[in-house]
């Protein structure tokens, strides 16, 4: 490592360090993983950005030369960083995030014999650029009705559909697999209130199918746990400026109310009397889109803040709009879940 004395140590542009109160992390947004590091190493990495390795060691009074070498060796071995003579040739990645869609994702509550015109709802979502939808079926939907709804999405730009269905005897795996094989945009089917827990996923099906004995209600939403961390470039960049759950999201409830999410009381008119396009341009509707993890109490000092979803419906203190999500058990101070 001695020949690195006059060189600069840099992390690869796609490996981005994020400091937390008790430890830090390096988000590798190209390989979609996250590496935890002590805050001290975060400080060393930051210090190294504008100093050669020699200057860096001198800053620490040459007391920790060996340790600094080990840090860098480890980071290089894990393909997180490298030495260079020309740091200016390696600019940082732009973290700007843009989307051409006015709405990118939607939750639609669906019931059979509804008076809502689902064809019109899908067509309006299509006009807004929506590409992902979650269909929450209530009541006792039949396979034919579900197929009818999926057919209505056929000519849209929707690329991914998740479905949540209450268990019924007709939802045996054969029927559900058949439904999924005919509708390749469906990537997740959750059947709740089932008799047993099971997960079906194989190479022949796009969709993953889950049966859960839990009864899923709107109030089941907002769960944040370490198994659900998501590390990728889009979410990392979007979270820098926007709310990771509610940004560009719209909900249409089973009676047509237009909301940010099904768990909120506040509605912005009804689809029967107002076009989605008008409802979502209301400044109030978009207010929550701008609450970032960096604004939220406790979360702003968490090393996972750009990899977890947010929840504004269930928070520790409902009177405080910057309160931590209620259903996250992680404490960044003690680093325990």
């Amino acid at each position, binding site marked *: 490592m001695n020949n690195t004395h006059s060189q600069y140590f840099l992390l690869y542009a796609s490996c981005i360090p994020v400091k937390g109160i008790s430890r830090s992390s390096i988000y590798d947004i190209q390989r979609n993983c996250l*590496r935890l590091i002590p805050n001290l190493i975060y400080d060393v990495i930051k210090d190294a950005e504008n100093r050669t390795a020699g200057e860096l060691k001198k800053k620490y009074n040459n007391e920790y030369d060996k340790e600094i070498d080990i840090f860098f060796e480890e980071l290089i071995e894990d393909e997180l960083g490298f030495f260079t003579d020309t740091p200016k040739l390696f600019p940082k990645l732009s973290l700007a995030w843009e989307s051409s869609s006015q709405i990118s994702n939607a939750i639609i509550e669906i019931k059979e014999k509804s008076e809502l015109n689902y064809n019109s709802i899908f067509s309006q979502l299509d006009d807004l650029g929506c590409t992902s939808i979650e269909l929450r079926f209530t009541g006792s939907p039949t396979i034919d009705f579900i197929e009818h709804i999926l057919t209505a999405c056929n000519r849209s730009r929707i690329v991914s559909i998740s479905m949540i269905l209450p268990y019924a005897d007709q939802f045996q795996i054969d029927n559900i697999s058949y439904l999924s094989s005919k509708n390749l945009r469906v990537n997740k089917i959750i059947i709740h209130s089932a008799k047993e827990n099971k997960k079906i996923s194989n190479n022949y099906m796009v969709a993953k199918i889950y049966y859960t004995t839990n009864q899923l209600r709107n109030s089941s939403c907002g769960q944040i746990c370490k198994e659900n961390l998501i590390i990728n470039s889009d979410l990392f960049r979007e979270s820098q400026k926007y709310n990771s759950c509610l940004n560009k999201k719209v909900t249409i409830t089973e009676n047509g109310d237009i909301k940010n999410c099904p768990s909120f009381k506040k509605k912005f008119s009804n689809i029967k009397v107002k076009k989605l396009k008008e409802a979502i341009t209301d400044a109030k509707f978009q207010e929550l889109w701008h609450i970032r993890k960096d604004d939220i109490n406790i979360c702003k000092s968490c090393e996972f803040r750009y990899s977890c979803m947010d929840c504004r419906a269930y928070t520790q203190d409902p009177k405080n709009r910057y309160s931590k999500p209620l259903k996250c058990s992680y404490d960044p101070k003690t680093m325990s879940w």
Partner: protein
Amino acid sequence: MEETSEELKSILGEEALKNLPITIQLMKKMKMNEDPNSIMAFFNSDFHGSDMHHDAGQYKPISTIHNE
């Protein structure tokens, strides 16, 4: 660095801070490893994010109503 040293000082006490090599200070601070000679412990904790959403052109779940 200043801030971190202060943080360590408050956790370990000034004397310990002077005598311990930095790797051991870190070990103690992080309470992560039984073997204080191994710096590797810091590099063992990796998180691979949930991958189920990427493959279908979606980069995040629409809701968190169900945990996989």
